[in-house]
């Protein structure tokens, strides 16, 4: 216990301090650039791109749908990475970053699902279809919910960090399994991932390519979402660190009388 307490004390003053100081310095940059990218990208996309010949003006939803979907998955990957760092290196900031990221992932998944549903209504004639991609996202949403619920349920923050990290690892494996299972179960309506395919970008893939008119504002929106995600994670991790510090200080106060 004494070693753990010592490590805790060290952590209390060394690393998180540095993290807070650094994040304080770089945060304005991320807030401003993400805001700028999002405003420019969305305004460009909304006001200055033509309608698609097939989808009409609904093509403009892509500027929100695709970046949100990308971030929903990348957020889980980031949580997986930070969970691994926590389990291996016992770096407290890492565990708290995973905790801070989860609600962002939930919101991103919600945005992707909501815009998808709103788009699907006129295009597919239904708000919701049990298409593999849609279903996978719904399952991802459930994983996020379980993860956050487990964090909230456990009092001791080190135990909570350990348990949620293991859940994140196991959950990742099952999320991939579910993806395959769902693919097998229903072939689906959703078009392929048109943005990230090389052919779609270079224009050789004429079938479902996102043409350049749409691509540049979309790229800007993706960058904006990524920067916004980083800013939010940094900011929220700072909040978590401070919340833990309050807890530690109060405990010490109680012990010292």
């Amino acid at each position: 216990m004494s070693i753990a307490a010592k490590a805790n004390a060290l952590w209390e003053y060394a690393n998180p301090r540095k993290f807070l100081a650094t994040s304080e310095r770089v945060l304005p940059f991320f807030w401003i650039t993400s805001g700028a990218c999002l405003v420019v990208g969305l305004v460009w996309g909304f006001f200055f791109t033509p309608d698609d010949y097939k989808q009409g003006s609904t093509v403009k939803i892509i500027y929100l749908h695709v970046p949100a979907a990308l971030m929903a998955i990348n957020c889980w990957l980031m949580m997986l990475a930070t969970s691994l760092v926590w389990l291996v290196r016992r770096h407290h900031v890492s565990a708290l970053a995973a905790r801070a990221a989860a609600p962002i992932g939930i919101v991103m998944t919600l945005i992707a699902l909501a815009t998808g549903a709103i788009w699907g209504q006129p295009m597919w004639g239904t708000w919701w279809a049990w298409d593999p991609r849609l279903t996978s996202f719904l399952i991802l949403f459930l994983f996020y919910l379980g993860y956050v619920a487990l964090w909230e349920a456990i009092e001791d923050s080190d135990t909570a960090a350990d348990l949620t990290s293991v859940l994140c690892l196991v959950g990742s494996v099952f999320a991939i399994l579910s993806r395959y299972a769902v693919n097998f179960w229903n072939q689906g309506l959703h078009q392929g991932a048109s943005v990230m395919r090389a052919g779609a970008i270079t224009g050789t893939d004429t079938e479902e390519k996102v043409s350049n008119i749409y691509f540049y504002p979309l790229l800007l929106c993706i960058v904006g979402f990524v920067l916004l995600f980083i800013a939010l994670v940094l900011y929220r991790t700072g909040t978590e660190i401070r919340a833990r510090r309050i807890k530690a200080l109060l405990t010490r106060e109680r012990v010292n009388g």
Partner: protein
Amino acid sequence: MIPDLGKYADTVLWSYVVSIGLLIVLVGFSVIRGRKVRAEMEKVEQRMTRNG
């Protein structure tokens, strides 16, 4: 000002409203909680230094 969105105006506008609304809620909640926690930490830290 607003471009002609044709018959899909509702669809597009709702998507934007919902998404941007969700983003604003997320940022708003993060900032509110961040401010609160920061203020509380300063309060607790001051009390600690005063009491020794």
